[in-house]
């Protein structure tokens, strides 16, 4: 595995009795990139993240993190890793500052790191409050602060935007972008908020039923964002045939609507074809297909 790889897995698999949660996963995350790890519930994302962190043992295959093999009980690999797995948790009886101080002591970070990360995550007003009184969003901020505290070279984040309000999501997005851009931190993150991922990542990997079924870089991701015209029309099947005859080659029916993918600059002509044939056009909107639609199509969700 090459020196510029932050995370590498080969043939990684995890089996729980009859269930193969992750199957033959070969993953390479380059140093300094932001990698989005997508998948529906039960796709194997969290299981993979747990194996990357040595929380569970693979049934087969190997994991390397920052050039070190992850083995049961071997902890040296994690000196440069900050992480957040699933829900945000903290010691409820300890204050925000004390929770971070626990992390500081365990990672050997300097004392000043606690104050720095409190400021970075805008936790100043909450610093002396017990974690049990924090809102879910603020607990998430605390967990992110804990992940960032020792200035790790690699962040492994499972749903980092969980429970955050829209402003918080943007804030975290900018924070991660800055960490990657200015500090060269590698970010490996899973998320259900696909639009958020699309705005942030350099590459995505899509997991489905335990397998990595597709990887896309930023350019490929942008190419997926197709423009189309959506039409509400009476007799959609007849309308589709009329449009095909008029030279619109990429027409798809989605329920009682039509999507025309090659209508760019030809919308007036499209409307004339339908109205001229006596069909009632009830809606005509221009939209674009995004990562979400691509993801749903790949993983068998509703279009």
């Amino acid at each position: 595995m090459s020196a510029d790889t932050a995370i590498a897995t080969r043939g990684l698999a995890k089996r729980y009795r009859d269930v193969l949660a992750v199957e033959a996963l070969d993953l390479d995350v380059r140093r300094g990139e932001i990698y989005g790890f997508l998948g529906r519930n039960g796709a194997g994302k969290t299981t993979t993240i747990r194996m990357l962190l040595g929380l569970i043992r693979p049934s087969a295959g190997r994991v390397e993190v920052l050039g070190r093999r992850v083995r049961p009980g071997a902890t040296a690999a994690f000196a440069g890793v900050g992480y957040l797995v699933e829900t945000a948790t903290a010691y409820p009886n300890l204050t925000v500052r004390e929770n971070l101080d626990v992390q500081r002591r365990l990672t050997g970070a300097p004392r000043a790191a606690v104050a720095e990360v409190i400021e970075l995550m805008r936790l100043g007003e909450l610093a002396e409050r017990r974690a049990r009184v924090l809102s879910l969003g603020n607990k998430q901020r605390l967990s992110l602060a804990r992940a960032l505290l020792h200035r790790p070279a690699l962040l492994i984040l499972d749903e980092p935007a969980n429970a955050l309000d829209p402003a918080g999501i943007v804030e975290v997005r900018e924070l991660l972008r800055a960490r990657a851009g200015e500090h060269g931190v590698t970010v490996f993150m899973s998320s259900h908020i696909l639009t958020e991922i699309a705005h942030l990542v350099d590459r995505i990997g899509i997991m489905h039923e335990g397998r990595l079924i597709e990887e896309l870089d930023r350019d490929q991701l942008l190419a997926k964002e197709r423009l189309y015209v959506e039409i509400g029309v009476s007799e959609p099947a007849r309308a589709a045939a009329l449009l095909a005859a008029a030279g619109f080659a990429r027409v798809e029916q989605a329920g009682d609507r039509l999507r025309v993918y090659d209508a760019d600059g030809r919308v007036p002509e499209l409307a004339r074809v339908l109205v001229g044939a006596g069909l009632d056009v009830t809606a005509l909107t221009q939209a674009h297909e995004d990562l979400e639609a691509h993801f749903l199509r790949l993983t068998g969700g509703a279009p």
Partner: protein
Amino acid sequence: MTFARVLATEFLKLRRGKVTWLTLAAFSLGPAAIALMMWIVREPGRAAQLGLLGTKANLSGLSATWPAYFSMLTLMVGIGGMLLMAFIVAYIFGREYVEGTARNLLALPVGRHWFVLAKLAVAALWWALLVGAVLAESFALGAALGLPGFSATLAVTAVRNALLAAAIAYLLVPVVAWIATLGRGYLPPLGFALAMLALGNVFSHTGWANWFPWSIVPLYIGAIGQPVTTIASSSVVVIALTFFAGVAATIAQLRWADNAQ
């Protein structure tokens, strides 16, 4: 030093926990209850006037003396201690799973064995402070009651017996810690401790009493029959093996098993 760093975090967690003070309050009630029984035995008339359990206390055949007082104290530290220690260790280990913080500890540049050792060290210190506080309280209450029959030899023997019972109770808890990490919570270790206490009582009546770890304290302190003066070498070996097996199993559980909390 890694151990010192981990230990410092464990002390911080403990200091902030209400359970620390609750255990002190609960354990302190023991000497107070024993002292009350002594007073009832000595003053049955006044106790009856106050509506206390004078009749039952008289029926118990107790005498209001220092030897009887110390004997009950040793029973409390031994039997109550085994339960309380199990509770403390179940809390220290189980809370990481109940509060969802275990996963925050396991992918850090800190060997997982250090967490086990630091938590057991904190439990030992906590237990030592509790036992120390309760012994001091007992002497103060006994003196306040003006119980007869005190001697320095008796006091030294009583303290030695209580400390030995407390030490054995502590040496049995790494197994409870293992159950807490295996069961990921409070209930499995507490259930285990109660079951072992019951089994210990059963085995105390058999020829296997010296070989079953949870029978040794009841046997030693006289919870069943007369107290024995020395612990059999077979029991020492059993206790030592139980302690080391418990520590090793807890470390192995954290190191090798899936921690998919």
